[in-house]
């Protein structure tokens, strides 16, 4: 390769723009900027021409007009006269709800399967790797469809609970599993229930305070206080006492079959359950792999060293292996959470009213405002993803091994 000798003095030739390292990067960037600007301009002019030809415009006014449709499961006040914007908010909250629930259960499944994959038991080990491989290698869309079909076809319809000799019955007379969802008793908050709740919250705080006091005492004086039973006691006794002192202000509202459906109680709709379960069991398989890799990443010497110090196996896990494994597990875990949030957009398959089904589904259908709806939809997911990524970056930098 010929080396470029930078010219001495001011003779400037055009070819220097490309061949001279001083100018090359600027030239390239200017060219890139021009190409990008041209592309965007080209796309935009097409958009403008197409919209003009079709006589359409871009307007977000439809967000304020009444949505006109009802939504099955809503956590905030909503009826068909609410605006499209509110329908979108209902969708956002439903998305966040199913994503949150699925993240929790997927973590439980994943940790469970990941730890069991390292079990000494051959059969369990094989069973767990079977679970992981089956769920990782089949599209989540098929899983959602399969689980939704299981829900609707295999669970009893509310009709089965009816009549003289019902073919199904409620669990403990309180919980009903139907193909429209699971009905559980709901608490009814009477006067004075606030005191009970406050007591409960205070006792939880109390438990933490007690445990940190016990730890401090252990480190300072070496005295070991019992932890388990006092915690259990703190958890139950004050709340139960206050509950009865206040005259049982909180009662349960049991679901009962009235008319077409179960009424009363709390209904968790079948679409939510199907989506929730499908997402958690699918993502659980991925998390299991992360957990296994994380635990295996802790070198065996660490376990042996801890054993040589005389720690019991439970403590080796808690004090030595897990803290190190978590450092490896958490970043991919968070990106799995991100995947759950994004995959929850498949709610549209099961009729769950998430943001894709409200804003990107019925609202889009009814108003025909495709461009606006899809843009808002992408914006929402983008904000969620960026928030989670930002959180992950903060976590990563705080967990970074402090080296020299």
């Amino acid at each position, binding site marked *: 390769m010929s080396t470029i000798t930078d010219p001495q003095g001011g003779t400037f030739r055009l070819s220097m723009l490309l061949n001279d390292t001083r100018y090359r990067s600027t030239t390239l960037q200017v060219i890139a900027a021009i190409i990008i600007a041209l592309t965007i301009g080209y796309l935009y002019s097409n958009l403008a021409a197409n919209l003009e030809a079709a006589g359409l415009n871009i307007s977000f006014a439809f967000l304020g007009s009444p949505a006109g449709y009802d939504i099955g499961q809503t956590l905030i006040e909503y009826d068909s006269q609410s605006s499209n914007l509110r329908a979108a908010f209902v969708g956002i909250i439903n998305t966040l709800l199913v994503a949150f629930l699925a993240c929790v259960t997927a973590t439980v499944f994943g940790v469970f399967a990941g730890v069991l994959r390292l079990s*000494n038991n*051959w059969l369990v080990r094989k069973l767990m790797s079977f679970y992981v491989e089956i769920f990782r*290698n089949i599209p989540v869309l098929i899983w959602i469809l399969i689980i939704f079909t299981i829900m609707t076809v295999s669970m009893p319809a509310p009709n089965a609970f009816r009549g003289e000799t019902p073919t199904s019955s409620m669990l403990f007379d309180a919980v009903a599993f139907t193909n429209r969802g699971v009905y559980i008793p709901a608490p009814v908050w009477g006067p004075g229930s606030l005191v009970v709740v406050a007591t409960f919250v205070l006792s939880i705080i109390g438990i933490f305070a007690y445990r940190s006091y016990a730890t401090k005492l252990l480190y300072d004086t070496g005295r070991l206080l019992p932890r388990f039973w006092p915690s259990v006691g703190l958890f139950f006794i004050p709340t139960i006492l206050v509950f009865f002192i206040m005259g049982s202000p909180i009662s349960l509202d049991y679901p009962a079959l009235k008319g077409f459906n179960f009424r009363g109680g709390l209904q968790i709709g079948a679409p939510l359950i199907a989506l929730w379960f499908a997402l958690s069991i699918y993502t659980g398989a991925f998390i299991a792999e992360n957990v296994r890799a994380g635990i295996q990443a802790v070198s065996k010497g660490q376990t042996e060293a801890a054993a040589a110090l005389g720690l019991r196996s439970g403590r080796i896990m808690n004090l030595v292996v897990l803290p190190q494994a978590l450092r490896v597990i958490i970043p991919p875990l968070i990106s799995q959470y991100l995947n759950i949030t994004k995959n929850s957009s498949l709610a549209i398959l099961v009729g769950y009213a998430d943001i894709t089904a409200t804003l990107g589904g019925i609202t889009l259908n009814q108003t025909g405002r495709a461009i606006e709806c899809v843009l808002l939809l992408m914006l929402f997911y983008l904000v969620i993803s960026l928030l989670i990524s930002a959180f992950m970056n903060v976590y990563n930098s705080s967990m970074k091994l402090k080296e020299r």
Partner: protein
Amino acid sequence: MSDTHSESTTVSYVRTETIPQQAAPANAAGPAKWIKDNLFATWANSLLTVAAIYVIYLVLASTLPWIFGGVWSTGSLRECREVLDGATGACFSVLTERWNQLLFGFKYPTDQYWRPTVAFLLMFVAMAPVLFFDLPRKLLIVTGLFPFVAFWLIWGGTIWTPLFALLSVIVGYIVYSKLVARSFAAGFFGGIAAALVFFWLSGFIVPSLTPDEPFLEAVPSRDLGGYMLNMMLGVTCVSLSLPIGIALALGRQSSMPLIKWVSVIFIEFIRGVPLITLLFVANVMLAYFFPPGSGVDLFLRVVIMITMFSSAYIAEVIRGGLAALPKGQYEAADSLGLDYSQAMRLIILPQALKISIPGIVNIAVGLFKDTTLVSVISMFDLIGMIRGPILASTDWAGVYWELFGFAALIFFVVCYGISQYSQWLERRLATDHR
């Protein structure tokens, strides 16, 4: 020690010969020991084993009679139920009766099924030299020709379009090899530009060469469907997104702020939204961004969006590979006096790509699974065929398990196969002698 030993040799109760080796006790060797160690080591373990056996029993007891009692040759669900007559059994006849629809969709001309089949078989020949390095390198010619041949086989129509596409690639290569002596960048971009210009010019000639009755009947891309569609989307988008992903990864590492920020924004944007919204864009928005009347069909729009999607993910994997290389490699390349493109081509990328291969394969598997999402935007891929025409037909309304089971199985085989390959490759490429 030794002298006490020698003194005691005469003592009668001390053995002078070694005891012959004996077989281990029955519970310390063979299957019994294995079972004891691996299944019933502790009582908690035994409990787990029993629970696992019970789960396996439950699953098998409910599925095996159903599978083995299956009916394979009836014309509709009603007939199948008559044949079964209340017995447990699957109606696999939906698979045999709709086999072609499941594989090719419902619109592909029936007498032309051999074309995608041949293309599918050719794909293995074309992929073999890429996947297995030991095969003769000459096979790469097949790989190079494959896209054009497969295009012609599947879409049919005039042979001149793929032929001119091939010619323009060759023209591009010639221009590249002429210019590369000056600088790689000139050769690279010049080659691409020459190929594009040549192909654009050929667009004026092709219509006049097109015979009225082409050798292979033209099939519009709207008529593609079934598992073939999943395969085509998967293969096309992964292969297209590799070079784009590399470019994006390099762009993200670039020292030029504009290039860097464009890459970052593109990657983060694409990774931040679910694929389904991108497919909505392909379906309901993208048509507005093309010139009026250009008629870019849905298949192409979906390919564009999925390629963008996977290239952002591949870029991140490759960036990981680039970041994992020791800084010394970059410095070594610099100290040899290599310029940017030489350093990348000769030193950095070969190593970075090698590190990234497992990640890229993971992305590819994920992408292949995600091609099922096109069923949501009214394309009739395997899942689209099942959810639409087959389950909606009078004959087969209500056959869920057989169809979903089939779809799950066919995806499992392919994805599991690819991930096994990736593990093999990882072992194969482990050259760092750990």
